[in-house]
């Protein structure tokens, strides 16, 4: 009996993942070319949330820009505020009071916790855990957001930092609540690890999936937890200390393989380090003013400046060109999320559709920052 080879004619097809898709974290769109379930190629399409923030910045006063920065990476507005204020302070040469520096560090680290809560929660949700990790992490984020509401009066767009400090001092019930929060968060991180760290299905889905080699990560300008998961030991809090980060003790968690699981683990480890930093900052927060004497309308000298911070998603920088007027001549945001997406195409090729979602989720982007 002879065997007859039967070959079916197949052809790749194009699937639009997004802009309205449950797990594209906003309005990201990928034109995905599929061969059955295998991703052959993706072509990212941006711009659905483009609001022209950089153009708007050119028309506002230096203080009036701060609410705009809230709307860049709307998951972590405190970090955006901090980066922008640092840039303007560097330009004007303003010295920030001690207490304000400590408050800024506390806020930035709380923001990192809140951001990583969302990042790991939605990553696991993308992996298919039916909303449970998502709900747990959102519950914890809610506690943090409560504190932000207490100090700044808003739950999303905090607009808390000002050029030369922070807008107002913390209310007296803030520090006790923070201490309670840190205790609860520590227990939560442990429990969360217990929930899914050793879960076989999660390991199968994420370990070894979407490996980002170190060289590619450097070449693509990847930063933040994604870069650290690939083994790049770069953290601006350590390498280019801004504010008062050189006073605190903390470790930089680094992954080994650079896969999705490592990115998830690095984020959880960073949450623990953030808790450590907040504890140290809480212990020796001094009394005093929270804002330097800065005029209502800031008028920096002509010149240009670049200040960057380690935002939860990576290196967030503001490049400001001033011509000596009350508004910047040009203000460029280094978009962490956009640059982190550069390597996505290399990471997902050859994986399945399900992996595409997991890898994309593990990068943790915000469309507000990608499109601006």
């Amino acid at each position, binding site marked *: 009996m002879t065997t007859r080879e039967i070959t079916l004619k197949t052809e790749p097809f194009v699937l639009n993942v997004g802009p309205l898709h449950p797990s594209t974290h906003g309005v990201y769109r990928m034109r995905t070319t599929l061969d059955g379930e295998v991703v052959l190629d993706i072509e990212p399409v941006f711009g659905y949330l483009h609001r022209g923030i950089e153009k708007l910045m050119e028309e506002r006063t230096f203080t009036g820009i701060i609410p705009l920065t809230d709307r860049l990476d709307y998951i972590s507005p405190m970090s955006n505020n901090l980066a922008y204020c640092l840039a303007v302070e560097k330009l004007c040469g303003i010295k920030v009071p001690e207490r304000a520096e400590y408050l800024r560090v506390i806020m930035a680290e709380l923001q990192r916790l809140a951001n990583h809560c969302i990042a790991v929660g939605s990553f696991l949700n993308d992996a298919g855990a039916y909303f449970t990790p998502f709900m747990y992490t959102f519950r914890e984020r809610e506690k943090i957001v409560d504190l932000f509401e207490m100090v700044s009066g808003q739950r999303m767009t905090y607009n808390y930092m000002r050029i030369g400090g922070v807008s107002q001092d913390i209310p007296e019930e803030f520090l006790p609540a923070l201490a309670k929060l840190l205790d609860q968060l520590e227990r939560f991180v442990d429990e969360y690890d217990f929930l899914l760290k050793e879960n076989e299905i999660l390991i199968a889905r994420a370990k070894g999936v979407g490996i980002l080699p170190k060289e590619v990560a450097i070449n693509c300008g990847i930063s933040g937890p994604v870069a650290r998961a690939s083994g790049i030991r770069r953290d601006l809090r350590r390498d280019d200390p801004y504010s008062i980060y050189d006073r605190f003790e903390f470790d930089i968690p680094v992954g080994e393989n650079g896969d999705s699981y490592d990115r998830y683990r690095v984020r959880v480890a960073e949450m623990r380090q953030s808790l450590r930093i907040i504890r140290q900052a809480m212990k020796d927060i001094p009394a005093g003013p929270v804002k330097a004497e800065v005029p209502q309308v800031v008028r920096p000298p002509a010149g240009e400046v670049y200040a960057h911070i380690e935002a939860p998603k990576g290196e967030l920088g503001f490049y400001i060109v001033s011509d000596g007027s009350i508004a910047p001549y040009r203000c460029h945001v280094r978009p962490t999320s956009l640059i982190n997406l*550069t390597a996505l195409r290399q990471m997902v090729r050859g994986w399945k559709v399900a992996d595409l979602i997991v890898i994309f989720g593990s990068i943790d982007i915000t469309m507000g920052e990608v499109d601006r």
Partner: protein
Amino acid sequence: MTVILKAKDIIARLSEKFPGCLAEAGTDSVLVEAAAIPAVVQYLREGEGLEFDYLNFITAVDYYQYFEVVYHLTSLKHNHAIFLKTRCYDRENPSVPSVVGIFQGADFQEREIYDLFGIKFEGHPDLRRIFLWEGFPGHPLRKDFNQ
């Protein structure tokens, strides 16, 4: 602490290799002739003691007379950084050589600059508008852009 290298030192180091291409644009930024950008970036990336292997960002500024494209490079190994600048004076059809071949991270950022400033990056493999749709009139971040 990331050290921003002084423009003087860089120029002194690179001037014999790239004669006439470099100038000081400020204490810590080097002005490079547009045509020499890929070669300079390549050299900065691989040169002994320089090793600027990380491209922080690329952006552009419109100064009416010319467009200035700014590159910020960092060396992860030596933890030092540098600002490179290049200018193109042609307003109608400005163009700068692309560095995508050297730094893949420049991909989306060059597309963004092309979209919002209209600066063409020669040699970019996929130079299309990124945020705005094809056919959008004008380039919004130019100073003379009028809706």
